């Protein structure tokens, strides 16, 4: 059974279609790139995948659960347990240190041993030396690595990344992409990444091309491209 299934998903905002009949499956441990021009529906697809938004028609099935069938409390539980988010602009809380940012999802879910787990995750993204730093004391690449650690800290089955290299220079962006690849391999975490960076697709397993809210094509990535 796939971890994530889009079944004829359509979404429109005030009558303007953002997604039209999107259907595809994402297997466990698969690293999928969503590509397409700005406004093609990438971010909307990530939002419905993470149960932050819901289709106007069709359904999204995450780990066997139809997201639109859940109530507010169950949705919060689903996000706490199964989904991690990475954003283009990092979205670290400025008042919290790196490690405090990372442990935040665990604290919100009232999980034990939050600090140890957060430090483990920072170690995994090679940021443990910066654990006590505040966000304004970090570079863009460092901030994104902390954000990745935060997205991983509760060991989600699905990691949703919205233009994770969009605010980074190409060298730093490459490092972040390599890190995501490693995570997918080591943890068998499913990653759905929206990007318009052509080079970014090289680290993924599958590329889904979107145009005007529709899936234009799905292809497997030829590694090394």
């Amino acid at each position: 059974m796939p971890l994530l299934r889009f079944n004829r998903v359509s979404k429109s905002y005030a009558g303007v279609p953002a997604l039209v009949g999107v259907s595809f499956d994402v297997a466990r441990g698969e690293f999928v790139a969503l590509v397409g021009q700005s406004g093609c529906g990438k971010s909307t697809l990530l939002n419905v995948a993470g149960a932050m938004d819901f289709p106007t028609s069709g359904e999204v099935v995450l780990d066997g659960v139809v997201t639109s069938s859940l109530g507010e409390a169950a949705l919060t539980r689903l996000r706490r347990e199964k989904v991690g988010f990475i954003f283009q602009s990092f979205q670290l809380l400025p008042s919290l240190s790196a490690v405090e940012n990372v442990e935040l999802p665990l604290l919100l879910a009232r999980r034990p041993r939050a600090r140890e787990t957060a430090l483990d995750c920072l170690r995994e993204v090679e940021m443990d030396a910066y654990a006590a730093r505040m966000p304004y004391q970090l570079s863009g690449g460092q901030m994104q690595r902390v954000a990745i650690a935060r997205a991983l800290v509760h060991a989600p089955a699905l990691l949703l990344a919205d233009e994770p290299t969009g605010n980074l220079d190409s060298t730093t962006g490459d490092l972040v992409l390599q890190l995501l690849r490693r995570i997918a391999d080591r943890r068998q975490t499913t990653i759905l990444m929206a990007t318009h960076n052509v080079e970014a697709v090289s680290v993924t397993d599958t590329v889904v091309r979107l145009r005007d809210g529709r899936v234009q094509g799905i292809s497997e990535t030829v590694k090394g491209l």
Partner: protein
Amino acid sequence: MAYLTIFHRLILRPLWRESVRTVLTIAAVALGVAVVLAIELAGEAAAGSFRSSVETLAGSGDFEVTATGGVPAAALARLALLPYALKLRPRIEDYAVVAATNRVVPFVGVDMLGDAPAATAGNTGASEFLHGGFIWVGKDAGWKPGEHVRLIVNDESADYTVRGIVDGAGDAIVTDLAPAARLLHRGAMLDRILIDVPIVVPASRPLEQWESILRTALPDGVTLAPQGARTGENRRMLAAFRWNLRVLSYIALVVGAFLIYNTISVSVIRRREEIGIMRALGATRFGVLGAFLLEAGCLGLAGGLAGVALGRLMAIGSVRLVAATVESLYVSSTPAPIALTWGVVVAGIAIGVLVSMVSALAPAWEASQVMPVEAMARGRRDHHVRMHQGRGLAFGAALALAAWFASRQPPVGGKPLFGYLAALLMIGASTLAIPALISVLSRATATVAGRVFGVEALLASRSLAGSMRRTAVLVGALSTSIAMLSAVGIMVGSFRQTVLLWMEDRLQADLYLRPAGPAGADRHPTLAPDIAARLEALPEVAAVDQFRAYEISYQGMPATLGGGDARIAGRYGRRPFFSGARPADVFAQLIGHDRVIVSEAFANKHGVKRGDTLELPLGGRRVRFRVIDIYGDYSNERGYIVMDRGTLLQYLPDPAPSNVAVYLRAGASLEAGRRAVETALAGRRVMVFTNRSLREEAMRVFDRTFAITYALEAVAVFVAVMGVAGALLALVIDRRREFGLLRFLGGSTGQIRRIILFEAGLLGLLANIAGIVLGFWLSLLLIFVINRQSFGWTIQFHWPVAVLVSALSIVYAATVLAALYPSQVAARLVPIEVIHED
């Protein structure tokens, strides 16, 4: 026009978009303006009122003749014999109590035949004027001709028939001199003679010359003064009271100013990038400065306009409270109508606009300094603020030192100006120290709060420390109002405790008697002279102390002259005098000598010391009295001069006492004693208080007197709490992405709500801590500097724990409740909308 368009788009439109927050800010300014205006209008109405009935009735004259204990009627005859066309208007003035309503109204005797005060309605003949049962009333009294009214005059009550209406007499009751003298036991004494001098050749006989001519016809002990001097005296006496009330009313405005500062600061921080873009597009520094000042001006204008309307409404309630204080402590008054003039309206609006613009100066200046390329992150800005905490603390310490220095200075023109300056400096010192307090406390509490209350408390505490500037301003505003609330609470509580202790020592008699009707600081109705003898004859009674009080003018200020039985006071007195001497020794020295003791308020007001000599005009003579000691007294602010009753009767031979203290024999029960006294005085309109009920009555008057200060404090706190609601709303709007992110990270809407409520709780806690510390120091300033310099009373410091705990708990609860709406707004945010706003 172009500038107006830009102003509308960049300044007014955002205000409109955040309408709830804008309304809260305007409301804060409006309340601040309203309180100032209400107190001004109420103070004017209450202070202006004592001149209304009696003074208006007197009409305009040039001079007035008065004397302690009354002006001998012979003086009128001597004035009439002067070879000038003088217009003489004798007056007998007192107060009567309307039995049906217990209302006190002026009771005035005039020469109805020769000097009818104004047109009188009804067909009245000369014989009717001499009829003791007829009265004429002012329009405000509310009676019609032919109505029957029961009045209590001194300790006698009788029915009167209204024969006509007197124009311009307010609520006064008017009758002819002869029946008034009979009724008030004046004998051949008048209370005042008003004199109009002829205006034949004004230049040749200026008023000074007339004064010396008139003086020749008058005995030595009477006072000749330009008419209206009494009003002037009362106004001077009330000046300190009104001044302090005015200053208290400014607190809400100061808190409002904090909030304007906060609003504009938030605008600037939030629009820093926007300002940078505007500068890059050609906006000048001056233009940016002007735009933000104009924003503040608009808020101030709206607040000022609303404040004027609200102030007029609030004045209705305030005038009752102010009048009650004036009546208890100073002078009989009936509130005059509230007069909202154009001047007051303009002043109210100007206050709103000016305070807003001045409060916005610093953030507007900061906005004008934004470089065209600048779009710095808020985190960096707050870091900058943290970096300067040390400097803030140093400045704070310097201000505290300056406050200490200012508090040591003497009053200026009778006003504790340096005391107020010290209070302002203390508030400044506290405001500068607040960032350090927040930093230390949030660091100390974050981990603990996180462990005890969960991640919501941790996030709330970090967020407060992270938005240092906004937090500091908010805590500053809330803590200032809490500090003033605590300071006034401690001052009033200390005063109350001091008065309780004073009464414990001072009130040693078992029963106290005075004529029926509400008491007033300047009214001394008398009891029948035979009362003391009747009481002394009772087997339950051990001693009777008769005290007679007169209103006098000393050095242009009203004061009370009194005479009591020094033997009895010496026997029962417990409270030592300021010199440390025992009551028995001091009172023994009064007997048979021209010696007096004076109250502390009198001594401080007139700079009188032990051993000084006072010259008092008594019964047609000027008599010199030596001050042998000073005693503590808190019954009124006018001040007392007290001599032995024997001495007083020697100069003013009217034996009627103003009040009587009865000491029961050892073993006699209070109930039996009281019954015996009431039986002996059956038919007399006398109020009998037991020692306990008199104390309760005194404390009731005390609490009523200070109700206005609590009301003012409550408004200031309300403004601050409103500010917290507005600021938390701004905080939610500013941090909407953060809240959206928390939802992405698995936060529930309940957790978002709790974060805001925790922030409010922490704000309240920080403000309470800072407020209590500042409040303690301000209370010392109020008690030992401002109060002492304004009123001359020594107050012992006392912590009114129960009052403080309950007041601060209410403030704390209100602060948390103020966060309910912002927390609701935060919980309703749509995460995907706010997270992608970049």
